């Protein structure tokens, strides 16, 4: 029955549409993943095992994306409240019985698999908020906004409690992006921004010591060059010494001499910057921009409010990932544990990201949620 609905498009794109794939997005992501593997090979000190593992993860992530693209938006729409509820329950469970790692409770261990429920929530929260707002007349009134705020705040606070500030921030962004696209008035946004600024001292008091340290270190990394400011300083040296063209692939000395900490995870951008210089950095940022832009274009073409809000929200969240990570590595933002999408070594968040793209493809290729 879907086939009849889909046949409105031009014959040349019908194959992609039938597979529910957006070729532009897929192409961009594949290019990005390939570049990521290349950088990872260098960042990991030429250790092929890292690359194999990452490639395997990418395989899984792309599969998840393509699978999710087949799910009809109607199903997503219907399921979003239940998925959200499950996510919240899991987050509560994590705080109760979760595994502790690096001083935080983030994982649930089911015996055969260990996972971070906060990753699911990155998708479930914008889904629920998009559905909720799509049901309301837009732009949203105060009452609607209050509810949306509550749906967002609930998972954010639970994740912040783990504590995992980076993820909490991303979930808040995902929810906030959806609300933004719903057309909340600029005046309200200004009030909101004012409130956030006013609340900063309170947040400061609620922060853990190590989190405060990070902010202070960000403001003045040279204060403790061998201790907590080390990351930032070494990253800056790696990036700056890369210059315009870089030292060439595998030619970065900073990362290979183990001066740069975490070169293959959160700080992998510094390796790129050192080896490929400004040219490489700009190219990668351009690639990211292309993907984000394609996502926004898909949102523009979406034909119902739910699809639009969700698609736009996911695209904008993806950009925030990139911005926060790169900003952190190049010393524009405090150090928050956010990976560079599809490039940093590591699995969990990559699958979530690709799931997001899968949903975007689904929203785009299925087009008509409600026959008009």
């Amino acid at each position, binding site marked *: 029955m879907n086939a009849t609905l889909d046949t409105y498009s031009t014959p040349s794109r019908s194959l992609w549409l039938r597979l529910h794939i957006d070729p532009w997005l897929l192409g961009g992501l594949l290019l990005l993943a390939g570049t990521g593997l290349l950088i990872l090979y260098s960042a990991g000190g030429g250790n092929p095992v890292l690359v194999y593992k990452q490639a395997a993860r990418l395989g899984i992530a792309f599969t998840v994306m393509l699978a999710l693209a087949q799910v009809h938006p109607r199903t997503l729409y219907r399921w979003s409240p239940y998925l959200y509820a499950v996510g919240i329950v899991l987050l509560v469970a994590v705080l109760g019985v979760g595994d502790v790692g690096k001083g935080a409770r983030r994982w649930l261990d089911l015996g055969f698999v260990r996972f971070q429920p906060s990753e699911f929530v990155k998708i479930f929260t914008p889904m629920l908020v998009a559905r909720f707002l799509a049901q309301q007349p*837009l732009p949203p009134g105060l009452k609607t906004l209050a509810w949306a705020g509550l749906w967002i705040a609930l998972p954010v606070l639970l994740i912040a409690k783990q504590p995992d500030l980076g993820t909490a921030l991303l979930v808040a962004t995902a929810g906030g992006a959806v609300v933004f*696209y719903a057309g909340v008035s600029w005046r309200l946004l200004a009030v909101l921004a004012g409130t956030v600024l006013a609340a900063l001292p309170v947040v400061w008091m609620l922060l853990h010591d190590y989190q405060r340290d990070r902010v202070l270190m960000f403001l003045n990394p040279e204060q403790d060059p061998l201790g907590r400011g080390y990351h930032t300083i070494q990253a800056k*040296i790696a990036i*700056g010494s890369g210059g315009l063209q870089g030292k060439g692939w595998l030619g970065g*000395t900073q990362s290979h001499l183990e001066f740069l900490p975490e070169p293959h995870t959160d700080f992998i951008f510094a390796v790129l910057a050192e080896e490929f210089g400004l040219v490489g*950095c700009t190219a990668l940022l351009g690639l990211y921009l292309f993907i984000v832009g394609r996502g*926004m274009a898909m949102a523009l073409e979406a034909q119902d409010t739910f699809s639009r809000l969700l698609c736009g929200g996911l695209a904008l969240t993806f950009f925030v990932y990139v911005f926060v990570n790169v900003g952190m590595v190049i010393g524009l933002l405090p150090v928050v544990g956010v990976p560079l999408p599809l490039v940093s070594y590591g699995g969990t968040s990559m699958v979530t990201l690709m799931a997001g793209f899968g949903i975007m493809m689904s929203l785009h290729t299925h087009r008509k949620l409600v026959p008009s």
Partner: protein
Amino acid sequence: MAHFRLKDAVHENRLFRQRILTSAAVVLALTLALVARLVYLQIFGHEHYAMLARDNRVKIAPLPPTRGLIYDRHGRILAENVPVYSLEIVPEQVEDMEATLARLQRLLAVTPEEIARFRQQLRRHRRFDSIPLKLHLSDAEVARFAARRPFFHGVDIHARLVRHYPYGELTSHVVGYVGSIDERELKRLDPAEYRGTTHIGKIGIERAYEDLLHGQAGYAEIETNARGRALRVLREVDPRPGADLHLGLDIDLQRLAYEGLGEHNGAVVAIEPASGQVLALVSKPGFDPNAFVYGIRRQEYQALQRSPDRPLFDRTLRGRYPPGSTIKPFVGLAGLEYGVIDAHREIFCPGYYQLPGVSHRYRDWKKWGHGRIDLKDAIAQSCDVYFYDLAHNLGIDRLHDFLDRFGFGRRTGIDLVGEKAGLLPSRDWKRKVFHQPWYPGETLIAGIGQGFLQVTPLQLARAVAALANRGRLIRPHVAAYQVSGERSAPLFPDPGEGRIALDPRHLHTIVDAMIAVVHGPRGTARRIGKDLDFLIAGKTGTAQVFTVKQDEEYRASKLAKELHDHALFIAFAPADHPRIAVAVIAEHAGHGGSVAAPIARRLILHHLNQP
């Protein structure tokens, strides 16, 4: 208001389009901000950072300091660093690690444990570090490997300094030993100072004076290539070796005490009363500390742990024993000080003591009793009845307060780790721990050093030293002074902890009585008093390990050895100008006079005969 409730598709569409465009603009602006920052770093900052990056290629390699040595009071070395040959492997240079290990195993009898330890180290170190596989190569092994060295790429023989304790089990507890730094210690240590250091003091002096013995790490600035391998040394800052420690300990006394205990387990503590220096600190049995330096085998360690003789247990600091009759001089002094008795008062000892209105008989060790007896004879002959009566008249409160002044029930504050406080019971203590009132009978048995009262050998020796000092309480210490380079500095210039206010006449009475223990015709330790040209003041003790029931008699021959009484002896000499104070506890050795006292005599004789 109603029209706001309706969805206005056209308006929504326009609104959304506008929002998407706005966000796209923001995304673009933010990306440009990132690019601007990159331009700032990579174009304008390039030269600066490129220079910093070059500097980064200079690696700082730690140079661990050599550990300070430990000497006894006559300059004999108790802990030294000896060079040993070790077989080491640089993983980066080995083509096939498994094959190499297998060949080495055949050539040099490398044990599976050594292989396992090597693999562990392999994970911790970098590929270009040299990692020891087998330590303590014999000359034959060195020769055997040397002949085949060309066939082993990346394997070589190195000389390393390894801690060695020449007196082995004699000094196991007091000097202690070093061992590999473990995870817990790693967290505590200053990483800068311990870079390159593999070992750390685990117990005894080695642990207590870790900071002094360790020294200060130096470093070498090494230029490295892009793979991090050393090319040449640019600059070196020498490490500062750890300070040498000179102990008050006399290894001869240590040996005399250890061997004097013979078949018995036990503890011996000898203190120089004036300075508080510990002359001997023996816990028997000991163990070979050298086995711990390079990782004791699990089986060996378990054997030590499971041994009923508890060789790992430091009896001098942590062993808690009832003091038995060795407490009597202190109780007697309490009686004099509080005016409960005078030196001439006599009581009648029928061989047992009864509290008024109670049928229970507290027995004397001498079945037929001592008859009429005064304080001096009661100490010399160790009459229990006299002290039952005295303790009863003193009461537990005064008894507790007085013994507390001699440091019983408190840590002595010796310069070693892990000391126990012993137990000096009081009314409050019993209420807190047992939720029970104090019973008068408990005062009686406390008066003869039984019941709840528990002392460590070190506490006992310190209390004896306080008697020898005529009331000056000292803080005992094993280490005397440190030497680093040309400079030597005393570690405890003032060992004093204050004076216990005592009437000199009362002290004289007690010391007199203690002299009678050794030199009196009926003294319980008269056998050690012969052929001396000076006087020893002492007191024997026999501490019951279990309580003999009212209608039973103690017969050593019938009892398993674990139930035999502990033999104790305390003494100082010469009685008028004491230079040594001793406490001896021989576990399950029966009567204090026959086993413990001769050990004390030997220590005293040896110490006093030295110039």
